[in-house]
């Protein structure tokens, strides 16, 4: 397992390698603190823990000069990155023998003899090689699974290509198969959650694995049961590993994922599709990076094709894929020209090999090399000269410089290339400047200074070479001053007729925009002259706002004056401002109470509590009058609800009166026996008054207009008895007594009035009595039909 390179990990300079132990220790301390902060990061935490645990090893290596030097070398090599696969002798021999399709028993014996191995070991090797062949098939299959199914045609093609029977390929397919691509897939596999997908990838990265299959060391065509078993086995292995560092934790997490993903075909297919898609996405992003100026250069194209083949595409298929992709993006692919430039890449390896071969070879090689180098540079210069787009020339030169700047033989030529590049760069810069200037002057002609300035800003952001930047800055200053003049003229024109607030806003805008402009002092004078005019405007506006109780605006306005002026007017406004702020505070409190009350919805009793709590806590608050209003409203709502409830109940109960009482709607009930009309609800239920003495009762019926009738009256005692004593009686919900119209005078310690009343009980019984007219009773109003 390759570990991280410490130079790269610590972001230390490689060329020349950092050797100052102070700097190195500082870098370690910096990283230690950085990793510690990331220790509990939701996605990077495990990696950070891993790095933290590496610190002692990092210190050991980086403090030892010899190890450190090795590390720096390795870092350089790492950057070049050579991944030459070592093929052992035995594998090569097997490859040759397997070419005919099988390996005989004798051949195995011979191979074992030649390589000094057991026969079984050779057989294992052969099995692995065979698996490799299938792994290529698996790879290509998995890529085709990205769309969620495979077609029979694809299977047949693959079988043919790999010299297999279609059944052999089919046996490795475990997602839906369809006859051809036009058919819809039989089941749309569920999309795997992208965050899980990402988490898996990140954990795989920590342990250097490509996929969950790779993690379990199994092929992508392995059946579910085996995968499940392997996941459990893996888990056991990790437990036996007997420690818990970041790598083991990552492994544990992955084993957990394996169990849930390889639980059934559906989840597994989701994962496979995500895997295939991510390979294609990787390839797509590779193409994106290579596409430059709408073109893919030949060298890149070849690399892309190889990469696509690594992912499991056939050469033809890979070429087609890249071409199609470029077509969609409207990119062209550079045609191959005679000699392949790829030679460079392998040049140095070849040179090393030749040195090893013999010194004569070296000299010979060197001589040829000299020629080749010169010719190559001449070709390069010609290519650069022939390009019309200077940027393309620079790209070619950059590539050249980057490739050879380290090599001694090329030093002079690289220098030449650099000069050539300078030249090109300055041509481009000149062109760019010209373009910018053209746009700027056109905008200036239209008096659009803002756009003109933005052109220059954009230009400066591109880091143009010094002389052009200086020119651009000079131009910028000129435009700035022109813009200011124009703005001042415009301001002077508007200020003559505009309203005070508009004037102020224009003036302050101006000052803000040109804090150090030529005319700014003059504008400030204008502002000072306006102090009284603006004060009058503000005062008037404030009066208006006060009426509307718009405290927020009032604060803004008063504050705006105070911010602008430090004079007696401003001093006058300060206490006002405080008052507005206080009003606003209380307004907010009031609004928040209302909000709280509203949030309680239909629960008016709770809402009432919100207000009464506040009143209790702040008995002197200035908003209490408004709160009282709210309370009245709420109480009314509660009453209405109760009335409604009682009405519903009574309506229900009247239906059981065997048809004697009939509800007429609008709160009126008719007694079909007597022909009298009664109010459905009595005064106790409507809650009109808490206490209704007899005089009030009389007034109450006088003013009633229930059901659209105005001739309501107090019932006679006999009429009351008629509905309550005679069954089926008018329904009674709770005990109460009613005023009758029958009253007379009585005497006891002075004159008073006595009224006949009837008390009703929910069980249907009644009682008659005479009461003092000053008692609190209930009215059941009646009228003749």
């Amino acid at each position, binding site marked *: 397992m390759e570990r991280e390179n410490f130079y790269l990990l610590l972001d230390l300079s490689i060329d020349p390698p950092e050797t100052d132990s102070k700097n190195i220790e500082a870098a370690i301390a910096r990283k230690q603190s950085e990793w*510690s902060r990331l220790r509990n990061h939701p*996605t990077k935490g495990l990696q950070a823990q891993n790095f933290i645990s590496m610190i002692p090893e990092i210190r050991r290596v980086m403090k030892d000069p010899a190890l450190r030097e090795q590390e720096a070398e390795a870092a350089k090599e790492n950057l070049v990155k050579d991944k030459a696969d070592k093929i052992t002798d035995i594998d090569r021999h097997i490859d040759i023998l397997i070419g005919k399709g099988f390996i005989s028993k004798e051949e195995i014996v011979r191979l074992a003899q030649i390589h000094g191995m057991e026969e079984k070991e050779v057989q294992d090797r052969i099995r692995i090689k065979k698996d490799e062949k299938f792994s290529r098939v698996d790879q290509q299959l998995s890529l085709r699974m990205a769309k969620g199914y495979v077609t029979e045609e694809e299977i047949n093609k693959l079988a043919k290509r790999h010299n297999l029977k279609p059944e052999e390929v089919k046996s490795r397919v475990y997602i839906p198969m369809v006859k051809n691509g036009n058919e819809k897939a039989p089941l749309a596999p569920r999309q795997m959650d992208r965050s899980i997908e990402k988490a898996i990838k990140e954990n795989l990265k920590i342990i250097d694995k490509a996929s969950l299959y790779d993690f379990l060391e199994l092929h992508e065509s392995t059946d579910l049961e085996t995968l499940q078993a392997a996941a459990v086995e893996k888990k056991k292995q990790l437990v036996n590993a007997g420690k818990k560092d970041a790598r083991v934790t990552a492994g544990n997490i992955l084993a957990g*994922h394996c169990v849930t993903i390889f639980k059934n075909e559906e989840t597994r297919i989701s994962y496979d599709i995500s895997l295939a898609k991510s390979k294609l996405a990787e390839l797509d992003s590779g193409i994106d990076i290579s596409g430059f100026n709408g073109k893919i250069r030949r060298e890149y194209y070849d690399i892309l094709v190889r990469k696509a083949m690594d992912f499991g595409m056939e050469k033809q298929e890979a070429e087609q894929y890249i071409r199609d992709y470029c077509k969609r993006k409207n990119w062209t692919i550079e045609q191959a020209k005679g000699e392949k430039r790829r030679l460079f890449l392998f040049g140095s390896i070849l040179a090393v090999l030749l040195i090893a071969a013999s010194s004569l070879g070296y000299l010979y090689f060197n001589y040829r090399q000299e020629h080749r180098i010169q010719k190559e540079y001449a070709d390069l210069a010609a290519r650069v000269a022939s390009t019309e787009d200077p940027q393309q020339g620079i790209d070619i030169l950059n590539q050249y410089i980057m490739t050879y700047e380290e090599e001694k033989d090329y030093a002079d030529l690289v220098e030449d290339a650099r000069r050539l590049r300078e030249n090109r760069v300055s041509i481009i810069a000149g062109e760019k400047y010209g373009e910018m200037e053209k746009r700027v002057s056109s905008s200036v002609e239209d008096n659009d200074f803002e756009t003109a300035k933005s052109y220059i800003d954009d230009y400066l952001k591109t880091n143009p070479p010094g002389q052009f930047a200086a020119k651009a800055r000079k131009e910028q200053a000129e435009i700035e001053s022109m813009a200011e003049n124009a703005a001042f003229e415009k301001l002077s024109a508007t200020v003559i007729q505009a309203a005070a607030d508009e004037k102020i806003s224009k003036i302050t805008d101006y000052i803000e925009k040109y804090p150090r402009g030529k005319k700014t002092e003059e504008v400030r004078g204008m502002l000072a002259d306006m102090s009284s005019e603006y004060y009058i405007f503000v005062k008037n506006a404030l009066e208006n706002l006060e009426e509307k109780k718009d405290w927020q605006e009032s604060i803004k306005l008063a504050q705006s004056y105070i911010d602008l002026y430090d004079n007696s007017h401003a001093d006058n406004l300060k206490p006002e401002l405080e008052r507005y702020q206080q009003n606003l505070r209380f307004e907010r409190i009031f609004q928040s109470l209302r909000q709280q009350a509203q949030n309680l919805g239909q629960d008016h009793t709770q809402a009432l509590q919100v207000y009464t709590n506040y009143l209790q806590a702040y008995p002197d608050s200035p908003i209490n009058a408004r709160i009282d209003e709210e309370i009245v409203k709420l109480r009314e709502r509660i009453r209405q609800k109760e009335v409604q409830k009682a009405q519903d109940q009574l309506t229900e109960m009247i239906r059981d009166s065997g048809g004697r009482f009939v509800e007429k709607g609008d709160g009126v009930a008719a007694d079909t026996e007597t022909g009298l009309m009664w109010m459905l609800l009595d005064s106790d239920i409507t809650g009109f008054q808490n206490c209704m003495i007899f005089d009030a009762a009389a007034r109450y019926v006088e003013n009633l207009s229930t059901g659209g009738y105005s001739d309501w009256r107090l019932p006679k005692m006999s009429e009351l008895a008629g509905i309550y004593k005679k069954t089926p009686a008018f329904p009674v919900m709770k005990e109460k007594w009613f005023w009758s119209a029958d009253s007379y005078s009585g005497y006891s310690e002075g004159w008073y009035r006595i009224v006949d009343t009837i008390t009703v009980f929910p069980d249907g019984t009644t009682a008659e009595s005479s009461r003092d007219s000053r008692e609190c009773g209930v009215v059941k109003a009646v009228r003749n039909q």
Partner: protein
Amino acid sequence: MNEKSIKHIFGIDLGTTYSSISYVDEFGKAVIIPNPENERVTPSVVFFDEENIVVGEVAKESAKLYPNEVVSFIKRSMGEPNFIFEFAGQRYRPEEISAYILKKLAQDARQYMGEEVTDVVITCPAYFGINEREATRKAGEIAGLNVRHIINEPTAAAIAYGSLETTEKKTVLVYDLGGGTFDVTMIYISKESVEVVCTGGDHNLGGKDWDDRIVSYLVQKFQEETGLTDDILDDPDTWQDLQLSAEKAKKSLSQRAKTPIAITHGGQRIKLMLEREKFEELTEDLLYRTIDFTREMLEAAKAKGFDAFDEFILVGGATRMPQVTEKISDEFNITPKIFDPDEAVAKGAAIYGWKLALNDDLIRRISEKTKKTIERPEALSEMIDRKEISAEDFREAARELADESGYTLPSVENAMFQVKNVTSKSFGVVAHNPSDEEIVFNLVLRNTPVPARIKKKFYTAGENQKTVLIRIMESETSNVEIPVDNAIEIKKAVLNLPANLPEDSPLEITYELNEEGQLHITAEETSNSQKIDVVVDTASVISGEEFEQAKIRTQKHMVM
């Protein structure tokens, strides 16, 4: 009656996400001490606010505004020697950060009780290794506390549970899914003792992992909705903000089927609805892992003859997630009991502390009465068994104690219950086997009852060897010989040998592991039976000058 005659020993649950402190009141009942904000748990979050250090809810809320000045989840880094939190040029180790949390708890308790908090019992996951335990003890010492005992969280929970149901003998399985750690432990409870049978778990698996899954999901959704491709978690403000939102969402999903979440980053804001079903999908594998650990632990328990259990108890805040109960019911065919998930651990620790305090007092009384010295509290019951101390003397001392302290006699007698523990890790040394391969030879195997004392002979490699380096290795296997790569080195000890020893001289090494998981090593050169000087290196845990400095800083800093 003077209840002050018994010193209070407080129980502290030092959790990954929340901590709490408890004591046993005059009725012998464990109660949680609320903090000044009147909350029963305090977030284990430390905020370095210029000169002041703020711990708790305010610190947690500050994480959004000052992500670089706030440390959370420090428990996960206990015993990690290379974890450093840097603030204003000062470098803090996890022990010191934890000390601030402890100091805050002690301070709040003092304010509430009106008495100084000096002696404490601190809890740690059963799965903590030696370094983590030692770091926890050091954190207490840095905070200026006298750490009487480090007790395992599931054991504490079982004590709290057992204190309510003392009549029956029961085997209970404690499934403790906390904020950052997961422990599963089988415990045998009777009137006389609380015995740990087997333990297992993972100290990198807890509620936070569930939160992290939500965070990743939110990042993904944000990218999908806005089309931005950069990792918004690179912005510390956004990271902290999402971390808090995720925790809230998780809690909310324990009550409701879905919850709204807003994500704000770089001036963009999106709102989305997270459904419980999605949440369960995102975290299914985590839950599976807890089940898997439980199964493994059950296997190990079976090997010890415990093939059934009476009750399945859930502790730790994360067990409130409905899927935990559902999954356990499905897998083990038993309805688990959620038992005081946030407070059981602190209360158990307080009860244990109370037991220690009563034991101290009882031993003092019995020693005075019998004129016999009792070295350790455990020795008392052994001495009663061996009739060196008569049951009558014991009962009389207990009665006196009950009279003077105001506690009831049965509660004093009950406080004599024993706690028997096992080690959650195996410990060994690096040695060469007969085929001369370097291996770890495990002297103490996991799930061995503690205290354990194991001796093993090793031999010197050369003539006149001056020193022997002992690499003390910790691992999680039950095998005697394991590859070196499968264990971690927790300490180094150097034996300074006497001069002129011949080759192959026998050395006897003794590992002593006590109830609290502290490891003590002695070595003897047996041919001449001379004691060998053992120098143990404790670089993994704060010590020496660094320790003293941290202590001074902690005393100096105001904790709010």
